[in-house]
């Protein structure tokens, strides 16, 4: 083999892709990052998003939600209601309001109608309202959804919690049994 052929063959071999030398033990904790793709215009920034977010609407005195991580079986929105102790707010209005907030519903996610609601008092210390909705999806479907509104008083204030079941109907009823304790946790997380 001539030197030229040897060099040419060696060049070809070197040009072939070879197994990468990768250091798997070097760790970088990326807590925030900004990335922009000039071709597509796609841009993103991701700090951790699991932290509770501030109330989206000034009319809400207290909003507690793990929406950014999303509680597993339901999302919870707490609404401090300005009513006398023991007096129930208007269920339909409250349901609409809480439902919209818990989903972050925008203009294309309007609640279509309140189908029905049932009132069941003294549900483990709460007043509970089970309501069913249909709303128009972005592709025009009517989606039936079920939620439970819980009302209770704490420190002379009336709170309403909307529990929208997103995962398993079975889990909802069991998890609600301890929602009062959970409320304290969520409120702490929000502060």
């Amino acid at each position, binding site marked *: *083999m001539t030197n030229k052929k*040897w060099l040419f*063959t*060696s060049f070809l*071999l070197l040009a*072939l*892709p*070879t*197994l*990468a030398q*990768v*250091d*798997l*033990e*070097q*760790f*970088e*904790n*990326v*807590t925030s*990052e900004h*990335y922009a793709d000039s071709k*597509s215009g*796609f841009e*993103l920034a*991701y700090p*951790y*998003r*699991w932290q509770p977010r501030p109330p989206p609407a000034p009319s809400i005195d207290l909003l507690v939600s793990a*929406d*950014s*991580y*999303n*509680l*597993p*079986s339901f*999302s*919870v929105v707490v609404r401090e209601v300005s009513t006398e102790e023991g007096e129930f707010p208007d269920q339909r209005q409250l349901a609409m309001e809480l439902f919209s907030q818990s*989903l*972050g519903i925008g203009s294309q*996610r309007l609640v279509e109608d309140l189908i029905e609601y049932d009132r069941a008092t003294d549900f483990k210390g709460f007043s509970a309202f089970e309501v069913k909705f249909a709303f128009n*999806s*972005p592709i025009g479907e009517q*989606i039936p959804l079920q939620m439970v509104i819980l009302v209770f008083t704490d420190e002379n204030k009336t709170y309403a919690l909307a529990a929208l079941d*997103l*995962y398993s109907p079975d*889990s909802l009823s*069991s*998890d609600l*049994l*301890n*929602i009062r*304790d*959970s409320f304290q*946790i969520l409120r702490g997380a929000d502060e």
Partner: protein
Amino acid sequence: MKQLLSLILSVLVCYQLHAEPFKFVALGDTAYGGAAVKAKYHELIDLINQAKPAFSIHIGDLWGAAICNEERYLEEFERFERFEQPVFFTPGDNEWTDCNRYAYGNYENVSRLELIRDIFFADATSLGANPMSMVRQADISQFIDYVENARWLYEDVLFLTLNVAGSFNNLQIKHERSIQEAFERHKANIAWLRDSFRIARENDLPAVVLSMHAEILDASTADDYLPGEFDDLVSEIQLAAYRFGKPVLLIHGDFHKFIIDRPFLESREPGRYGNITRLQVYGDPDIRGVQVGVDTSKKWVFSYEPIYVE
């Protein structure tokens, strides 16, 4: 003559250094029942051994609704010894996030996770009769508890596991410690995901395989106008895959239904995440595995073949 020998040697060296096609087996949600079901599972393991994959990945759920006592963990740990090739494991809900249920023994979930870590992740190696080494998040980062989050490289393909289990990933509102644990683990998982994809990008690796137990896509894709419990993680995977730009295989179980699809093709931005393929493994009562072929010279890298007992 000397040059010819050098050339032959170079060819041999380069041949060995090039990524070769290989196969691994994915399985999970195995053997929920009693002795008969375990026997069938053993038959499956025998078939896997005969197929001689490079390794297997068990995505969790080693048993069904059963008491989460230490004996059961030890029994399943020993059962992994039946695998002649290495087997990597990531825990499922039946091993820990379900253990506070009555049928599972009313344990504190975090205590079961600690037990899993002690038994299954005592060393930085896979399980099986011939274990492979792996890099654990706990050993190289500030997330010192997460021995179960691992990564390894095989023929230039990066594999990683995340501890994301079904049954709400332990984010159970009635258990404060569970909520705290879930939030902390989420931070660790996201950090591990981001860093692993950083490595894949910086080293121009041809593909990434991400394994976990939970089905995280359903709520995020079927009803994308509803907030899903795993939206945050799904978004992270989408972003990581988009930036990576090469084939990404997400392996999971939990729903016991064999699925191979590209779950984001029907999303509002179908082209953006088209490089993500999802493999949901069989689950009890279908005690089966999926043999995944990996050929980085092919455009889509991965191919699939069920492997199961008749």
